[in-house]
Every structure is written in C-alpha cells, then in structure tokens.
C-alpha cells in the first residue's frame, strides 16, 4: 500500500516536473506581454533535436541525407545547455517575426495567438523536412554510468526520470532566485507588474521582453532535451502534446504566477498518476477536466491574481 502510494507520487512528480517547466515558459512571456506564445511546443521539439545534433547524433532527413551529423559530439550536459541557449535564440526569432510587427502596430492581442501558432507550424514542418519523420534515440553515452532504475522500497523509477526531475527543479529554483534577487530579474518582474511605472523607473521594457522570450525559449529547449534523452525523439510533433498540457497547467496554476505554474505542474502530474489502469483511456481528458473544474470555481486559476483584461 505504502509502496503503491510512493510509486504514484514518484510517477506524478516525474511527469509533473516537465509540465511545470513548460508552464513556466508560457508564464515568463505572459507576465510581460499578457499573451500566450503558442509556438512554445514547437520550440520544445526544437530543443530536443538540437540536443541530439550537438551530441553528434546522425539524422537521415527521410533518407535524403543518410547518416548526416555534426563532425563532433558534446557530452550530454553541455549539449543540453547549449541547445537550450540556441532554442532561446530561436525564441527571440519567433518574437521578432510573430510579435514585434504586431506590437509596433499596437494590434489586438488576439492576433498574437495566430502569428505565434503560425511560427510553430513553420518550425514543426521545417523540422520534419530537415530532420525527417523518423524517431531518433540519443547516443547510449548520454547517460553512461547511470543504472536503469532507482528502487525505493517497492517503488521503482527510471534513473533518467530522477535526473529529469532534478534538472527541472534546479531550473525552476534558479529562475525563481534570479527573479527575486538579481537586478535584471527584479526589473523583469517590475515590467510584468506594471509596465508604465517600470518605464518611469528607467527600465527598458523592450529589452525585458526580449529577455523573457529568451528565457522562455531556453526553458522549453531544456524540456525538449530532457524529454529527448528520456523517451527519444519520436518525431517533430513531440513538443506539441507537452505544449498543450503546459497550457492547461499554466491556467490551472494561474496565469502569470510562477509558484502557480510549479504547483499546477506537480498537481497535474499527480492527478494523472492516480488514474487507474482500467480508465487509462480517459487520462488525457483528466487534465482538462480538472482545469475546467478549477476555472469554474476559481476563474483565475489556483494562484492567479485578478488581471487586467488584455485579450
């Protein structure tokens, strides 16, 4: 009984960590701009593919370029960080193409949904063309030295899931500390709370916005690389499902709330882990049923603050 409970907790934490990471990615942009970046799922995929490439993994581009790969291979931790940074840059590109032109024209926030979705569509289809539709597994050296699984009492969890949870936790803690303690982090928070006052205080809100996109993309890229090492890259659509779940988590926790995103992620992971096997077909509906119920009881999510109507 205790074992079952422990197992459920572990299962929930393992998937919840990634949900929280994605939700944080949304949160960063939302808190500054008040809109949702629908391209985040595609950036998540991109991060996975970049990590794979940087580790020296070969692609085949649907047989067009069999065995093509970079001439070098980085160790996994380095590749993961570099890929996250590159995904952050790609996220800046998304900002430049999908967000900046609309911001200049002071367009309706509704339009951002569409342009960011378009950016995601372009990214995923480019990945499919350039990388191919095949599944790719990371080189076995990625986790060399780790045992297959960790046994805690009667509960078992794959080591890679523990690693995944640890990295997610580290990223979340680092981000929170940075937001609270550092100069630029507090500037970002200030812009998120009140852009006009922040501007009066001499904070460059445009730079902060770019910073938010960079970090949000980097978080998504980190998630993609971690999921890639855990379950391989099943195809360019790998990030879309996580993007959608992350969206549910985001709203569940409360838009724009960092602790909300984390709590929401863990809660969602746990709830999914509690679904009995016989009803596992309904698992995907559960996330959204919870979301639906929470929204009806608390229209701004669990930890959200009442926000100014933006969309």
């Amino acid at each position, binding site marked *: 009984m205790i074992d079952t409970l422990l197992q459920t907790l572990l299962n929930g934490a393992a998937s919840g960590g990634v949900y929280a990471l994605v939700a944080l990615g949304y949160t960063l942009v939302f808190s500054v701009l008040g809109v949702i970046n629908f391209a985040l799922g595609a950036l998540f995929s991109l991060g996975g593919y970049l990590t794979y490439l940087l580790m020296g993994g070969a692609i085949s581009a649907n047989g067009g370029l069999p065995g093509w790969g970079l001439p070098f291979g980085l160790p996994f931790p380095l590749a993961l960080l570099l890929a996250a940074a590159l995904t952050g840059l790609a996220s800046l590109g998304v900002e430049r193409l999908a967000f900046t032109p609309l911001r200049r024209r002071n367009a309706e926030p509704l339009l951002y949904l569409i342009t960011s979705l378009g950016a995601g569509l372009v990214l995923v289809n480019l990945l499919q063309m350039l990388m191919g539709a095949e599944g790719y597994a990371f080189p076995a050296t990625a986790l060399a030295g780790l045992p297959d699984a960790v046994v805690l009492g009667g509960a078992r969890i794959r080591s890679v899931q523990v690693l995944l949870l640890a990295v997610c936790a580290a990223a979340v803690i680092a981000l929170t500390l940075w937001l609270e303690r550092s100069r630029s982090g507090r500037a970002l928070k200030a812009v998120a709370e009140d852009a006009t006052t922040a501007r009066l205080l001499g904070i460059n809100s445009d730079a902060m916005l770019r910073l938010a996109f960079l970090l949000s993309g980097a978080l998504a890229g980190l998630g993609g690389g971690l999921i890639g090492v855990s379950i*391989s890259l099943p195809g360019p659509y790998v990030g879309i499902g996580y993007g959608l779940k992350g969206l549910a988590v985001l709203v569940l926790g409360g838009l724009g709330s960092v602790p909300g995103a984390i709590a929401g992620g863990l809660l969602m992971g746990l709830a999914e882990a509690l679904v009995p096997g016989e009803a596992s077909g309904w698992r995907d509906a559960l996330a959204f049923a919870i979301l639906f119920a929470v929204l009806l009881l608390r229209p701004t999510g669990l930890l959200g603050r009442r926000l100014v109507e933006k969309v």
Partner: protein
Amino acid sequence: MQHRRQRGALRLAVLLASGIAGLALLGQQANPAAKAVPAALAPDGALTIGAVIALTGNANLYGQDQRLGIDLARRWSLSQSPQRPLRLQLEDGGSDEATAIAGFNLLINQGALALIGPTLSQQAFAADPIAQRRGVPVVAPSNTAKGIPQIGHFISRVSAQSSVIAPLSIAEALRRDPAIQRVAVIYAQDDAYSTAETLIFQKALTARRLPPVTVQRVQLADNDFQIPITAALQLQPQLVVISVQAVAGGNLIRQLRELGYRGQIVVGNGLNTPNIYPICQRWCDGILIAQAYSPELDTPINRSFQRLYQGVRPGQPPSQIAAQAFAAYQVLFEAVQRLQRRGGLAGISLGQAREALMAELLGGQYDTPLGPIHFTPDGEVVQGRFYVAQVRMDPGGRSGRFALIRNATAPAASPPER
C-alpha cells in the same frame, strides 16, 4: 455609415456568392473516364498510377517508408521490360481525412488508372468510397482495419489483418515457457491498427485459458510509460503483449526493461520496422514479433527488393511498411502488363480500363517480397506466409535483426475477414 456598411457587406456577399458559383461551375470538369485509353506505343502511352500517402502530419513516419517502397517498385518495374509503361504520380495525403479525399479527387480527375493509398485506415474510410463511386481501383498498402475491402468492389489491400499473424507469436511464447500464468496487455487505444490487433491477441490468450490480468490503454502520442508500466508490473506478469506503433513501442519495451521486467515480451505487427532498434537498443533483444514481412525471406523478388533498398539506405533492413508499399505497386504493375499482353487495353475508355484492371488484379497470383499473395473476390489479400521472429541485437545495441524462428503457412483458402 452603418447603412453604407450594411450595403457594402451585402454587395460583397453577392460578389463572394457569384465567385463560389463560378468555382462550382469551373470545378465540374469533364469526367476523364470517358476518354479513350491511348495506344501503348503512342507518345503519351504511359498510364498513370496515383499514390496518396502521408508526406505531412504525424503519419509521415509511415508515409516516408511508403514513398520509398513505391519508388523502389517503380524502379524494379522498369527492369522488367514492361510492354505498357506506367507513370507514377505521388500526392501528399496528409494525416487527416480531408487531405486524403482531396488527393484522391485530384488524381481521379487527372485520369489516374488506379490508386495506391491512403496511409491510415481512418483516411481510407473517407477516401475509398469516392474511388468506389467513380470506379477507380484502389490498392491499400497499409490499411488493416476491419471492413476496408468491403467498402466496395474497387477496393483491395495487400496489408494482411493481424488475425492470422498475431496468435502465432503468442503460441511461440507459450512454447518457450509453458508455465506462463499471468499476462499483461498494453495497447494504443486511439490507433485503429492497435485496437484491432489487441482484440485478436486477447482472444488468442483467452482461448488458451490465459485471460490478461491487466489491460493498460495508452495513446498513440504517448512515449512516457512510467505509469502504465508500474501499474502492470504490480501484478507481476510473466508475459507482456504489446500493440502500439513503432517509436512508442520501442520506448515501451525499453522502459519495461529499465523498470525491471524480465519476462517475455510479445509485440504486434506495428513494431515490425527497424525504426525501433535505435529507440530500444539493447533492451529490444529477445522480443517476439509476428510479421507479415520478413527481410530474411529468401526469394528472388525479395532479394531484388533488398538490393534496391540497400542502394538507398545502406545497412538497414527494409520495414514491413516499405515492403507492403512495394507489393502494392507491384500487383498493379503486373496486372496492367497481363492486361496489355492479352490486348485488353486496346480501344476502350479509361473507365472501362479501370474496370478491366480491377478484374485482372483480383484474378491474379503475385510473387511479392511479402511472399506469394492473391486476392479474394472481395479484394482482401490472401497471404501465403507469415513469420515469427525474435529480435537479436548487436553487442553495441544500435542495430539488430529480426531472426526468423517460425515460417508459418496460412491455410490455403482462408475465408475473407469480416
């Protein structure tokens, strides 16, 4: 102002409506079925075979293998000194129903003699009725759902249902370990193929008095199976029977092993692709699989297929999906050549040629990379041989092979599947 805007909207609506009416008239093209089939030696004597397969969307993984298989068959056909040359026209059928319908309509209107596709069974139920109504032969390379050939006379398939194949691998697992008592079943519930296959697996298990101790449902897009696996392993199964698609299956096997499962694993036909090797690596070793295609089949046509395949993807064995796509083009090619030799294509219209081809197709015997096949009058494939293989991975764990352990001959005249 409001008034003007209303009037403007009305005018624009009328403009749009007349535009739609114009498109509707223009779209009513002359039916190419009435046109005469050109003589074989005429400059435009090549007949068009259309293929509608998934080159975009999440079924693209299969679509790419199918594109390759069809193209290899086309190259192979050129070496057979055809009396009636064929032209291949490939269209993206996407992974949804609407795109498949659009692809079928496009090729039928352009005068395709016959069609190969679409990739998914759900798409077939949308697009095949259109080909049926317009009298265009369809050979499905990968649709395995129940009821596809029954859509109509013009619909056939070379992809055998799993009903014959699946129980073979269960039998093999029980032969290896007759003491098996507890069986767990895992399948992808939103995948047409896997849901059909798991029913057959479960029936075969129940017939041997081994009703599964748990049935775990997962989704096609799932790749993290921590939850269903730990749930299943709590019941201490001695055999796990899996029906999911390729990459997810590789992950499922790997995670089963990583989480400590040591018993036998039987997997369905969806995993009959070397695409799983890089995913589950050394953990793949030893799984049992029932196959509709074995790369190890030693026949001249399979050797030709393998040779062509090696030219494009060196070092990789072909997947079942590619082999079935090859067979789909091959049966059409051979039926057209037979018809041509008998003079059956002379002086008739395209519509009549389509009908004649369908009759010819269903009447023939074919020696394909899948083994010898023919069709029931319904259009269901009757495949002579099925295989049970065990995966043997290289010591490095990056590549491996499906080592043939059983070469089962299906009953000669198996009744059509219903």
